[in-house]
């Protein structure tokens, strides 16, 4: 029991994932700033942001909303993100082998933050948040099918293994999955799904600063908003980690840790560059993008996998 709590709260769950994610968030902001000819924030800026929201800022509750759900939603988001972090990172760091079928649990848990943002935004009683919430719903419907097909393709490639540790071990014994044609296609699909899950441009329409002024998060302030930031930091770490685990043979001990860090940074760099070289799509265009193009890619990848390519 105690060791499970340690896994959840300290390593590799909440605190470890959040701190790493905050550092990655600094990396994101620094790279964005350099692309845009700006200087960028200092290394500890994400921590300053978080602790200012948590300790200094007051909480303003919407008068026309459901306060209980409004407060519950950010906690649920953090719980989902941290839980997904535990299930992804334990097999990845080879601390615990996980269990059969944990990939599907991870899939559900990764949906939890987006889901709680929706209920939080709808509970806030703000029309802009409601539009943001409906956009987030449409976005989830668009990319979740692609994402589950992506996971299904990985399961096929690993020889029908449903647990993450075996997927990683299959790659470590042979070649990483990304070394094949279908693997490259799956990597493209995975990166775009992560982009949408992280609500980064071009898929940031639920937040859409210039249209909805932060949309789903418009009513959040103070500690509840700090919780949302925390969930976002965790997601920024565990989604690239998940892609690295599924396609790029995870992490080996020793010098492998350095490679693992570089692989994570590479995936995050790719996400940030996509974010900085595209305008925001409309929700209809994003749905079309996932329903037609990404699903097509992932189906091609599945077919190629069946032929062993």
């Amino acid at each position, binding site marked *: 029991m105690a060791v499970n709590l340690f896994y959840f709260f300290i390593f590799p769950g909440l605190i470890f994932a959040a701190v790493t994610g905050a550092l990655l968030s600094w990396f994101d902001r620094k790279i964005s700033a350099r*692309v845009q000819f700006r200087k960028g924030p200092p290394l500890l800026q994400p921590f300053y942001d978080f602790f200012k929201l948590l300790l200094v800022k007051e909480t303003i509750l919407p008068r026309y909303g459901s306060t209980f759900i409004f407060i519950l939603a950010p906690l649920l988001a953090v719980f989902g993100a941290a839980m997904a972090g535990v299930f992804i990172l334990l097999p990845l760091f080879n601390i615990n082998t996980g269990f059969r079928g944990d990939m599907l649990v991870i899939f559900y848990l990764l949906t939890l933050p987006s889901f709680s943002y929706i209920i939080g935004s709808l509970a806030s009683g703000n*029309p802009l948040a409601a539009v943001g919430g409906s956009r987030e719903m449409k976005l989830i419907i668009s990319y979740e099918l692609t994402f589950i097909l992506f996971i299904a393709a990985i399961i096929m490639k690993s020889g029908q293994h449903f647990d993450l540790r075996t997927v990683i071990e299959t790659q470590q014994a042979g070649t990483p999955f990304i070394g094949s044609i279908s693997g490259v296609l799956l990597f493209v699909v995975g990166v775009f799904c992560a982009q949408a899950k992280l609500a980064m*441009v071009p898929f940031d329409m639920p937040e859409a600063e210039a249209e909805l002024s932060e949309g789903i998060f418009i009513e959040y302030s103070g500690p509840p908003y700090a919780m949302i930031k925390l969930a976002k930091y965790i997601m920024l770490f565990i989604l690239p980690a998940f892609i690295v685990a599924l396609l790029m043979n995870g992490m080996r001990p020793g010098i492998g840790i350095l490679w693992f860090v570089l692989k994570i940074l590479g995936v995050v760099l790719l996400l940030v560059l996509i974010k900085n070289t595209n305008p925001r799509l*409309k*929700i209809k265009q994003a749905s079309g993008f996932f329903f037609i193009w990404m699903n097509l890619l992932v189906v091609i990848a599945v077919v190629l996998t069946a032929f062993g390519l």
Partner: protein
Amino acid sequence: MSRKTLIPIGPYHPLQEEPELFKLFCDGEIVRDIKWETGYNHRSIEKLSESKTYDQVFFLVERICGICSTSHPFAFANAVEEIAGIEITDRAKYIRSIIGELERLHSHLLWVGLAGHFLGYNTVFMWAWKYREPVLDLFEMITGNRNSYAMFKVGGVRRDIENSKIPVIRKVLSDARKKIDLLAGAVMDDPVIHARTKGVGVLTRQDIIDYAAVGPTARASGVPIDIRKDDPYAAYPLVNWKVITAEGGDVFAKAEVRLLEMYESVSIIEQCLDGLEKVREGDITVKVNEIPEGIGAGRAEAPRGEVFHFVVSDGSNSPARHKIRAPSYVNIATFKKSCIGQTIADATISLAAVDPCYCCTERMAAAYDVSSGKRLLNANDLIALSLKRTEEIRKSGAGHE
């Protein structure tokens, strides 16, 4: 009638840098109707102008708008010079046109950046504003100010552009041209920008004529309306340039017109610099003794369209009446055509596409009783009305509609 959601854009909203309120009545994400409220920014410029001397009015009208801060003095100078029948020197004409076109350059760069930001493309935002910086530095070198240049006066300009500075200006312009190339490439060739802006917020030729829209908004729909050609002033008849138009009428066409106009601006400035080198240095004003009684209308092409100033002089040293019409006043009305039926995402970029400027636009009308000649609703009445309304809102529990 089905129930519609009110999506407020404003009074404080990241889409617009000024306070204004657009009420989008939406059915799901589709905008079914739009209403707007301005008046948050009213500063009573016209009334103030009547209490200032002609020389002071230039500083006042310059502060109507921070971005197109030369177009208002430009139009006002044209109006007053029409009353007094003054013909300014060639050097002053060239300098006026140079300032006007540099302003267009920086204003269009600013718009491209903001449009990028509204589309979520912050890289374009930062790049465009970085490229705008040398233009502002150039302003500082020429006029002493990065904004509100204080260059105009009745009968000429206040400062000369010395011939020794011309090579520096040419250098900045040739750099600017390269940067516009880069920016135009990034915007015009990006497939995702095409997907977001083509066919969005379309204004047909007929819409433009119906709503009397002006400036790049009109030119993007194929209406070649440009005061610099239609009612030539300053040095514009002396240089060779063409009016840029596009056919689409959508947001993309508006961006295209603005990007291509920047090249024209650079070319006009270069020709004006050639002109400056030919005329005698220091010959920038003509002496004006008095402004006679009379009326004058002055027009100037601001970056956003036609600025119109109407001045009535009673022979004293300040205008008896000064009427201002800014381009946004007519352009804002086109939202009725461009936004209804679009999704919220499209409507917001359509709102931004005319580059509206609210503080230019805000005017107040006073009502008089015809029979008695007494003013209806004076200041005290308005304050009482406002207090009454606030009390009503407070009783009904916040301003939810």
